[in-house]
């Protein structure tokens, strides 16, 4: 406000003060320039690696011995996973900022603080690696790896498109689910090994929650598996070529609902809000990673974002047409990444909107509602598959009609989303107030 008296700038006198002033003015700038340079190199290297993998690895594939191809693909996947985690963490902060009428990180790297996660990563690497005296040392050291490595392993069977996969296994869907299931062991290990009661509570909650929600998650996916008759993710994805209305989510009403039950269960299995009880910061300090610091903490963070993208990718492949374009154009891994990123964004949106559920409500929601409901969906999907064939022409016609209705419903939902987003964007000043703008230095 204009009438707040401004303190006049203080003029420093004397040489030593001048040196201090110069140092304080140029020191951080110089350091940050150097760091930005380093991050740029790192970032460029990762991007180059991924490009190399995508271009060279793909086209020279038959010429290379298989282990070189494998090596290149694994390194590329590693790079992709790192980028997912880094951009995910930065994106989460930007999303939360926008939702909360602030800006989020704005300084590091100049363009909307894009380098913030890298800077944080550097900071975490430099931090002291604290291990509590009474912790179970080997398990405490092992736990972050047990959490991160399986989450990465899930990507080994996750196809980004036809041919864009490390191993096209016959059981790739189950493989991804199995790998995501191992992650819980790392969390429980961390909670137990920390020898802190808060960590233990986090671990117990994680165990409860994940073992319970794995079942509705698997059942929702099985409903889709019944519809296509395969647990191979590539087959599942390829079954949905041909635009928006061919997506599995619109194939029958049970699958339409199964997508949402899967999404809820996947939120729980990634410990995302409103199911973030294992780390619920207002109850359990930080839950299972209370005692972790430095790079070990980062690994848990990485594991969370990597798993977030993995479950979203699974939902994309199985329900949302995978790498196929909604408008019928050529299919491309870009579509796959785009759709998965949208689902990740919805996860963030939910996280910054909803309060946390209590543990008994989590279990009630799963065992009393979600589990019977997904069982019904599975049954319904199976029955639908039984009748939805040329032998039952009447039902076939009804099914096709319903498919159209569901597709239109999906379009309406998407349209509502974009309408809401546009409305919010044009009225952002009225909706969130101008406080963020008012208090920006120099604004």
């Amino acid at each position: 406000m204009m009438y707040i008296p401004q303190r006049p700038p203080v003029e420093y006198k004397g040489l030593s003060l001048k040196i201090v002033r110069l140092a304080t003015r140029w020191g951080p700038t110089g350091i940050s320039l150097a760091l930005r340079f380093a991050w740029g190199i790192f970032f460029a290297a990762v991007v180059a690696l991924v490009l190399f993998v995508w271009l060279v690895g793909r086209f020279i594939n038959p010429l290379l011995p298989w282990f070189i191809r494998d090596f290149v693909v694994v390194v590329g996947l590693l790079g992709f996973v790192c980028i997912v985690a880094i951009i995910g963490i930065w994106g989460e902060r930007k999303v939360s900022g926008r939702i909360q009428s602030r800006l989020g990180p704005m300084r590091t790297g100049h363009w909307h603080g894009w380098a913030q996660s890298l800077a944080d990563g550097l900071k975490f690497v430099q931090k002291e690696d604290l291990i509590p005296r009474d912790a179970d040392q080997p398990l405490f050291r092992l736990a972050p790896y047990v959490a991160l490595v399986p989450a990465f392993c899930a990507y080994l069977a996750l196809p980004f498109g036809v041919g864009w996969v490390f191993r096209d296994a016959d059981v790739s869907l189950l493989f991804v689910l199995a790998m995501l299931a191992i992650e819980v062991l790392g969390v429980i290990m961390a909670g137990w090994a920390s020898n802190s009661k808060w960590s233990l509570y986090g671990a117990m909650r994680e165990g409860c929650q994940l073992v319970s929600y794995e079942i509705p998650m698997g059942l929702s996916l099985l409903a889709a598996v019944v519809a296509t008759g395969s647990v191979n993710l590539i087959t599942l994805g390829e079954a949905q070529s041909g635009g928006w209305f061919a997506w599995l989510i619109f194939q029958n009403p049970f699958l339409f609902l199964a997508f949402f039950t899967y999404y809820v269960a996947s939120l729980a299995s990634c410990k995302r809000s409103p199911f973030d009880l294992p780390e619920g910061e207002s109850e359990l300090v930080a839950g299972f990673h209370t005692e972790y610091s430095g790079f070990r903490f980062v690994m848990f963070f990485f594991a969370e974002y990597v798993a977030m993208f993995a479950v979203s990718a699974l939902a994309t492949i199985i329900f949302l047409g995978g790498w196929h374009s909604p408008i019928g154009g050529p299919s491309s891994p870009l579509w796959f990444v785009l759709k998965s990123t949208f689902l990740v964004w919805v996860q963030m949106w939910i996280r910054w909107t909803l309060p946390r559920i209590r543990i008994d409500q989590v279990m009630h929601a799963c065992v009393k509602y979600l589990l019977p409901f997904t069982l019904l969906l599975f049954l319904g999907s199976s029955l639908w598959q039984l009748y939805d064939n040329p032998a039952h022409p009447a039902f076939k016609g009804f099914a096709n009609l319903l498919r159209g209705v569901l597709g239109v419903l999906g379009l309406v939902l998407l349209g509502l989303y974009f309408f809401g987003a546009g409305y919010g964007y044009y009225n952002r000043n009225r909706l969130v107030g101008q406080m963020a703008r008012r208090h920006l230095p120099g604004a």
Partner: protein
Amino acid sequence: MLETAVFFLFATVAVTAGLAILLSTHIVRMAYWLIAMLISVAGLYFLMGAYFLGVIQVLVYVGGVAVLLVFGVMLTSRQQAPKLRPGPGEALWLTIVAAVLLAGLIPSILRVRPEQSALVAENSVADIGHSLLGEFLGPFELASVLLLVALLGAAYLARPKIPVLGAQQKKGTTAL
């Protein structure tokens, strides 16, 4: 060559896990060694081309049973843990039993000659599905009944026995 190396890797992990459990006095570490064994057995299944079985081993055993086990360990471990290491007399007896068993098993294993030396082609999930719902339909249905009974039995056994809810508490809240 590579197959042999991978086999010995997994076999070493599995046997090491067993020995570690045998010698360990730390119940939580035992549970994690068990998980190492389970994962290496899953790896062996993969090695033998039984992908479906390997994945199910990880999904059910590691993701479900092992988590439950670790959970049980946490719920029941306390300061005065029961005896986890055998006394000298027991150890002797144990060694004798183990040696006799191995001495009996190994020669008979070496005598095994498979009728058909060629490897069976890797089979798909569909084949196992047909097998389950064809030849093994009876056991399959029995297994499902067994699982249901186990579910009910476990729920009955582990039900809360403390009337935890005071008058002022909500009905939906139960003890965990």
